[in-house]
């Protein structure tokens, strides 16, 4: 059986190569409630990770998987790097929930991949845009079980601006986010 090509780190030198103008503005063919997903990425010492590539892929506001693009860019996909404070920001629409092949319900969520120097493989996960009590039946929430760990994947709404969802990501140690594999 053939073996998959091994992963390697994205390294520190990708900004000119992989980043796009307005890569953090996620496009969709239709309308939806515009929201911002923003936060910071930290390492195991609590230091901000200033050189991560942060990617998002999500359903549209009706829970439909995007296909095609607006001409120049694919729908539903965002790509930014963290800044010197470890901060990222994605301007997108609120994704709808969607069904899996066995009828299971996926809560409103965004699939995230993080690449960086010091990460030999991508870190993949899903961030939830709904509170704990509304995601209990989600397949990943059920697989995690422990509410404390699950909370690491829940973006919280900014009380002053409900269009802003905040999600900090700790790669290692206290408060370490849950990461997934397929």
């Amino acid at each position: 059986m053939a073996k998959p090509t091994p992963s390697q780190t994205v390294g520190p030198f990708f900004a000119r190569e992989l980043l796009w103008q307005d890569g953090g503005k996620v496009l969709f063919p239709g309308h939806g409630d515009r929201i911002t997903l923003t936060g910071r990425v930290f390492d195991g010492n609590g230091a901000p990770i200033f050189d991560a590539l942060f990617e998002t892929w999500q359903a549209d506001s009706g829970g439909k998987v995007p296909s095609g693009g607006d001409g120049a860019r694919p729908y539903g996909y965002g790509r930014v790097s963290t800044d010197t404070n470890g901060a990222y920001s994605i301007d997108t629409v609120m994704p709808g929930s969607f069904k899996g092949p066995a009828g299971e319900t996926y809560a409103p969520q965004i699939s995230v991949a993080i690449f960086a120097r010091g990460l030999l493989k991508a870190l993949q996960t899903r961030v939830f845009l709904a509170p704990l009590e509304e995601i209990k039946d989600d397949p990943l929430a059920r697989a995690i079980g422990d509410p404390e760990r699950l909370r690491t994947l829940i973006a919280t709404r900014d009380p002053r601006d409900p269009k802003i969802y905040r999600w900090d990501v700790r790669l290692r140690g206290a408060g370490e986010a849950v990461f997934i594999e397929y």
Partner: protein
Amino acid sequence: MAETRLADVHPPYLYPDYKSTRHRAPAQPLVRVAPSPLEAAGPAFPKHFVKESEADLTTWGKSAPLGEKMVLVGRVLDEGGRPVRRSLIEVWQANASGKYPHPVDDHEAPLDPNFLGKGQLLTDDEGRYRVVTVKPGAYPWQNHAFGWRPAHIHFSLFGNAYAQRLITQMFFPGDPLLAIDPIFQSVPEAGRKLLIADLDLEHGVEGVALGYRFDMLLRGPHATPMGV
């Protein structure tokens, strides 16, 4: 089954000889899930997202870049041997002196005004790609005393499903620096040769460019047992 195969070839997150992994590798085990319907699909890059000229890194400047010109060909397949069609490949690399045009690259080597080191293309209907470039140089890094990265070309692939997303590096055959590179050595032995291109003279250009071949294999989007 899939688990064993993956463990065979992919590096661990924590590989202490590569120092940056010590503070960035997750300590908790990953949670295994089936790809969501979203992750079983992926972003669709329209045909005109890339320009044909972007597969030739040697025509970016006013004249030819310095270095050993090379043609790199290969195919991208999934685990079932099916071609990954019309899928975005992005490549980037140092110039022939081992220098990136990047503000945080402090290696005291010259930039080449005729080389940016960035390319992209979509695979064809057979999963094939072809890139024209120059062989990148090795460069020193501060991971450990006398550390040098072997010459490498970075690859970013999307596959046909977001669950197949891969970023990797391609290396050159016979490079003595491979033995001292913790990034390359982080890959279990069974996977290392999969990151090394083969000389493929016939795909070069006679008298002009050396040919290399680098095939890549991505996990199938449904290679995970059903369940969660």
